[in-house]
């Protein structure tokens, strides 16, 4: 197979080509490629920021450029990398896992991809059309109001997010209906794979949370273009209203990008431990609990706003509560490994790394739920450290694990182990150097979103270390790119089930034919392939 095998393989884009395909596997690949492309762009933005911050008083970037870059970095990584990659994986894998031929609405599925892409294009057009948004990814009013915002950047923000958000909502409806109504015979929800479970919950979260963002964007548009006063205190409006609306979206959003990651880990750890997921019911229930609770914690981003002690206490309580279902998953994964037969293939290596790095992010998150601690650490680099540990040490590590896991199913070839280890160690060491010192910086008083900082504050060496770490992460990504390139051309061929796994996607050829299954399977337990391969030790009904 040549390097273009990915787009010319039997099945992929074969019937309709990229522009007209409605096959969920094609669309899944397109989403993931979109995410990878924007990962490179967002990563480049990060490297520029880190170069600027490597030493105090640096002047590589001027404040305006810096502000646009940190804003676009955040927007890109969340809306154009994490979401598309996770929806891409969900699109490809979920129908296979539930024994379906495609998703519920294939044409809408294609539409949701193109809307996501178009939204991203709109956002990036801003750079050449008056300047990119520059008020941060959460764009607090009234800085974004006409009285204070310079240029048209925020209008691009509104349209870019509204359009790609519409794509996400449509994609989520598609996945939800698919999972609810198209599971193969015998697959009650209690027998569905954990990745499918998490995708279902995530889809409901998207359907519930994105409209909050859309409403805020519409109101901001009214303020900016029609002279409205929603968020302008001078006109009678309320600056904190934006924050309430945004974070009502924003907090579920972070669970939207982490639950599918949890789902991937819940697939990988059991397979590479040779055991079932410990506590399937609890893990599923904890996902549901997170889903519900995620709508009730938003104001923990606003403890310093001055809401009042009672409100702060309420949101502190719910935020601590949500830590419990999040944390117990870690115990379930550890218990799955316990007494297992651990195989350190690349998916498992990244899954183990994920557990170590995500638990750090989770613990600092709990500290941020404690109001007095948050009043010190919020809006400092401590939060930047926390969010990168959960989003990079969490979501991204899981995405890497998922990539190594499902790459053979998609392409029919395995990714190399040697280059994989290079990728892993550069990434783990890189992220530790990049993000761990940020906690120290926050404790030492460095605020976030500053284009430069004064010398002599004790902030110099941690910033330099952080910059070095960011370049190591980039090096790891290059190793991954090289691995993909090489594997597509000459990687070891994978059969249907290279990992000796448990779920239905591994019963199809690699890559699967366009209709996925010749006959729709019937299942009798949560691990159909395990049952088939071990008829003497099937899972209890």
């Amino acid at each position, binding site marked *: 197979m040549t390097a273009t095998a990915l787009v010319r393989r039997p099945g992929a884009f074969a019937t309709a080509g990229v522009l007209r395909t409605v096959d969920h596997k094609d669309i899944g690949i397109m989403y993931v490629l979109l995410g990878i492309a924007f990962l490179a762009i967002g990563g480049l933005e990060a490297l520029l920021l880190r170069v600027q911050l490597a030493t105090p008083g640096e002047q590589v970037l001027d404040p305006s450029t810096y502000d646009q870059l940190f804003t676009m970095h955040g927007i890109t990584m969340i809306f154009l990398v994490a979401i598309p990659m996770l929806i891409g994986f969900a699109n490809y894998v979920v129908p296979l896992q539930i024994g379906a031929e495609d998703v519920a609405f294939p044409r809408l599925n294609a539409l949701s991809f193109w809307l996501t892409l178009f939204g991203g294009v709109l956002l990036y057009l801003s750079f050449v059309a008056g300047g990119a948004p520059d008020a941060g990814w959460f764009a607090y009013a*009234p800085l974004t109001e006409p009285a204070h915002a310079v240029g048209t950047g925020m209008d691009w923000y509104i349209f870019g997010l509204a359009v790609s958000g519409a794509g996400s909502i449509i994609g989520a409806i598609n996945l939800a209906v698919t999972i609810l109504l198209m599971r193969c015979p015998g697959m009650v929800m209690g027998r569905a794979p954990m990745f499918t479970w998490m995708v279902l919950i995530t889809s409901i979260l998207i359907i519930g949370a994105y409209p909050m963002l859309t409403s805020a964007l519409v109101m901001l548009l009214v303020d900016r273009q029609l002279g409205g006063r929603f968020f302008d205190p001078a006109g009678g409006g309320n600056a904190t209203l934006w924050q309430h609306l945004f974070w009502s979206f924003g907090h579920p959003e972070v669970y939207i990008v982490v639950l599918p990651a949890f789902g991937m880990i819940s697939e990988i750890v059991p397979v590479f431990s040779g*055991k079932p997921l410990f506590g399937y019911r609890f893990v599923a229930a904890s996902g549901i609990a997170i889903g519900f609770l995620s709508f009730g914690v938003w104001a923990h981003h606003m403890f310093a*706003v001055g809401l009042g002690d009672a409100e702060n206490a309420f949101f502190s309580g719910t935020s601590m509560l949500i830590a419990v279902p999040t944390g117990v998953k870690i115990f379930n994964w550890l218990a799955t490994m316990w*007494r297992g*037969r651990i195989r350190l293939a690349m998916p498992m290596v990244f899954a183990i790394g994920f557990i170590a790095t995500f638990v750090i992010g989770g613990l600092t998150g709990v500290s941020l739920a404690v109001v007095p601690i948050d009043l010190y650490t*919020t809006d400092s680099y401590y939060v930047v450290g926390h969010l990168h540990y959960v989003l990079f040490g969490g979501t991204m590590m899981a995405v890497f694990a998922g990539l190594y896991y499902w790459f053979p199913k998609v392409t029919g070839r395995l990714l190399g182990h040697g280059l994989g280890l290079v990728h892993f160690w550069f990434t783990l060491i890189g992220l530790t150097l990049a993000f761990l010192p940020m906690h120290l910086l926050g404790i030492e008083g460095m605020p976030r*979103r500053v284009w430069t900082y004064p010398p002599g504050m004790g902030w110099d060496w941690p910033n330099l270390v952080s910059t070095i770490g960011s370049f190591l992460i980039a090096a790891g990504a290059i190793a991954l790119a090289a691995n993909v390139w090489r594997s597509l051309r000459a990687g070891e061929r994978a059969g249907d089930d290279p990992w000796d796994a448990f779920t239905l996607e591994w019963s199809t050829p690699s890559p699967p034919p366009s209709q996925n299954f010749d006959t729709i399977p019937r299942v009798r337990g949560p691990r159909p392939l395990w049952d088939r391969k071990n008829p003497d030790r099937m899972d209890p009904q």
Partner: protein
Amino acid sequence: MASSLEPIVVLSLVVGVIAAVIFAGVLVALIVFTVRYRDVRAGSAPQIHGHRALEIAWTGVPLLLLAIIFVLSLVTLGQIGQGATFGSLEPPLHVDVIGHQWWFEFRYAGGAVTANELHVPVGVPIELDLSSADVIHDLWVPELGAKSDVVPGQRNVMRLFTARAGTFSGECAEFCGLEHAWMRVLVVAEPRADFDRWLAAQGAPASGAAGRGLEIVGSAVCSSCHVVQGQVAGTPIGPDLTHVGSRTIIAGGVLANTADALRAWIADPQRYKPGALMPKVPLSSADLDAVVAYLRSLK
């Protein structure tokens, strides 16, 4: 209590230790399991599906721990929040704080107005009344503990305290535009007597030298944005300059308050703080010297 930071440090240590123990436990388990159960063959592991009692336990124990931390946090909030006394018997000192893009204004009862620098007496709870003239800012003095947003259309109240004298560095901690990074402050905590003397001096009208400098500052060039109480009746858009000569930093901390720095700043503010709302002031070299001399005489 040594300062309003102290209760936060205590609570952070409690939470930090608990977090460290949990992290260590997870890491050790991870490493031990990976090493101990490493095997190239799959499929011969015991097929354990779960253990209800264990799962209930590891759900309940964290819940309990968190409940304890929650209660401790309420106690800490009581020690640093609204109406906190920090163990002091002194009545609180009120200061109004107004956030601007990109500098902080401080107004004391009695009429003293200053910028970039907040003087406070030691051993007295300081009650800051925070509001914004434009966008959302946040006042944070890390060595004194918590921060508070400074929101337009809203008044926030925050109490700080220190028992020891010293100079503490503070900053804006809510992204507020181009020069958010240079919206820094100095907090000078001094013994009561020194503070009273400082306040009295700050409250007195200006006593700057007359001459060319005063003439220029009094003209529209400067008075369209600045005020010098008793000598220049201007529009208070920029910082009040009545006692600017007594301050340690200027321009939100991007420069120290020396003659050279002041001169360079006035000649071209955009060079040091691009985006600052102070425009380039076209003055001749001689005029510039006169203005700097006048401003430095405003002690």
